[in-house]
């Protein structure tokens, strides 16, 4: 997992006096009997690259469509720039959207597509052409101005859609799975470009995605959604390192989840007795926990190390390697403990074609420090 953006000292969501550019207040959307969005409240600040992340059917697209004005909330209020826009039609909202299907007008040229929103504003022709040129060069498709959408590749269409949505210089850009239709290589390249454009223009981006890697790479903050509710809202690093629930831990990256119950807590050092691990485990946790509370210990595979003898690792388990997956840069090992529980750990492949240090059915001792794992109570 990597983040494309520098960690900035100022984090607008931390400042209590900062007025959010978007305030979603207890918004619900019901389709028939089903709640697609179920009481979501979120504050999004100016200049953020905010991701709505979740599996399909979690309500992320419905929430985005309510921000654009295509759906009206069943309950709750939406404020943009301090103004109540809950019932304002889409054509009067200061937001623009980039559609998942791009929704380019097939009967208009690329330039006409980009100029469409400006025409609605009544912008003079000369200024309009100037702005279209500016947008074309922003997304690097200067030569395609007179083409029709059906004469473009998927990647080029995606750029036209972005240029069209940015042409009116909106304060907020909504992006519905903007990279979903691109192949992996192009997607990675476009991620960088999106972040660059967002930082250059200073526009607030709200992006819907089901791809956790995409959300991790680009976002300033991620809202993880589940069944129409917000599970956790945090910057990518925090979401990865300190997931607040089993669901969040499992959704982002891979993780080992070991069930047990609290045995004791001294200051912030918690001892967990786990039948699955076949022993006691230690973890640093600041919140007080009652002895006997059922908890789950969560540790990422890259934090689990091979016990080399001298290292002081608070937690140790031993088992037999059952599976090895070679991914090129790293290998993933599945180790079966005596209790039958499987623990994953990864190792970087530092040397090319080095003799494989670990093999199937090798007995290994694994360990991890108490401060690189977490406790989940839900």
């Amino acid at each position, binding site marked *: 997992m990597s983040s494309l953006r520098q960690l900035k000292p100022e984090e607008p969501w931390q400042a209590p006096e900062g007025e959010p550019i978007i305030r979603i207040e207890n918004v619900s959307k019901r389709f028939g009997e089903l709640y697609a969005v179920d009481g979501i409240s979120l504050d999004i600040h100016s200049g953020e690259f905010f991701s709505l992340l979740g599996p399909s059917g979690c309500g992320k697209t419905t929430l985005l469509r309510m921000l654009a004005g*295509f759906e009206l909330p069943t309950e709750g209020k939406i404020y943009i720039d301090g103004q109540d826009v809950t019932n304002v039609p889409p*054509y009067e909202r200061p937001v623009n*959207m980039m559609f998942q299907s791009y929704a380019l007008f*097939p009967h208009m040229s690329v330039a006409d597509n980009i100029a469409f929103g400006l025409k*609605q504003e009544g912008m003079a022709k000369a200024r309009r052409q100037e702005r279209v040129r500016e947008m074309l060069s922003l997304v690097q498709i200067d030569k395609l101005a007179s083409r029709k959408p059906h004469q473009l590749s998927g990647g080029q269409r995606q750029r036209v859609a972005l240029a069209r949505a940015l042409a*009116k210089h909106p304060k907020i850009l909504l992006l519905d799975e903007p990279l979903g239709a691109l192949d992996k290589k192009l997607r990675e390249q476009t991620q960088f470009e999106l972040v660059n454009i967002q930082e250059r223009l200073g526009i607030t981006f709200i992006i819907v995605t089901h791809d956790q890697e995409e959300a991790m790479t680009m976002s300033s903050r991620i809202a993880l959604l589940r069944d129409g509710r917000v599970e956790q809202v945090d910057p990518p690093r925090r979401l990865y390192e300190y997931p607040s629930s089993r669901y969040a831990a499992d959704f982002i990256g891979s993780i080992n989840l070991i069930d047990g119950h609290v045995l004791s807590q001294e200051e912030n050092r918690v001892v967990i007795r786990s039948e699955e691990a076949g022993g006691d485990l230690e973890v640093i946790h600041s919140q007080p926990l009652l002895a006997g509370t059922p908890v789950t210990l969560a540790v990422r595979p890259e934090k689990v190390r091979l016990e080399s003898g001298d290292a002081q690792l608070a937690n140790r388990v031993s088992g037999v390697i059952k599976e090895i997956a070679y991914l090129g840069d790293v290998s993933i090992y599945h180790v079966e403990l005596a209790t039958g529980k499987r623990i994953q750990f990864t190792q970087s492949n530092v040397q090319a074609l080095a003799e494989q240090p670990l093999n199937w059915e090798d007995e290994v001792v694994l360990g991890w420090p108490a401060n690189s794992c977490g406790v989940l109570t839900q």
Partner: protein
Amino acid sequence: MKGLPLSPTRGRGLIIGVPWFWLGLFFLLPFLFVLKISLSEPVLAQPPYLDLIREVEDGLVSISLNFGNYLLLWEDPLYRSALFGSLKISAISTLFCLLLGYPMAYAIARAPSHWRLPLLMLIILPFWTSFLIRVYAWIGILKGNGLLNNFLIWSGLIDQPLEILHTPLAVYIGIVYSYLPFVVLPLYATLVRLDLTLLEAAADLGCRPWKQFLTITLPLSLPGVIAGGMLVFIPVVGEFVIPDLLGGPDTLMIGKLMWTEFFSNKDWPLASSLAAVLLVVLIIPFVALRHFEQREETI
């Protein structure tokens, strides 16, 4: 055929060959007959025209082509005005069919999906009654003491019956009524396929609903407008039954004229040349449209 695999090209040739064969046998060949008759001399005989190629004396063959009919069509103002009259009636009827049919097709395409089929059935339902009977029914509605006049007098809007039957208005009513389904169906087919996210995209960019219709829906439904318009315009130019039953003596349409030449005047060559001219007149806009479409695609 046994043991002989059907190659893809032969398979394709076979499939394309069937409609070609059909068109050749039932369209091209009869048209060539008509063309041949149009170039011959009328006589009082059975059939009432002379063959183009005749054996005059033993072994001597004479070929005579008579372009007189075409010359007559050009010179006699009757035929010209009948042709232009037909084109005018056809154009106006097509326009009204489109004006009435577009909102109908639009409403059906936007109706909840479980309503669409029943609504389409209502459009198609009149086809289950004979065309002729439906046109006759209009006589009952439009005549002096017909349904329409009785209703208008009863409601106090008029006190003398309106004279509608046997006027051009009656012909327009009959044509628009009869041909309306032919514009509704193709228009529905294009409107129901329209990607509604395009309208959302337009709204998102600040376009109001009425302008969305003008800038997105209407241009993208033009193929349906053209297909529906053609389906009305072309058959109406040659329409015979409706002007004959509902129109008056002054409603001059080429279909009626052709009927008169063919059956009353027994002038087969003249009637045939009328048919040939009509076909050419109708083919020109088609070819122009094809040309225009192909240019559009290559741009």
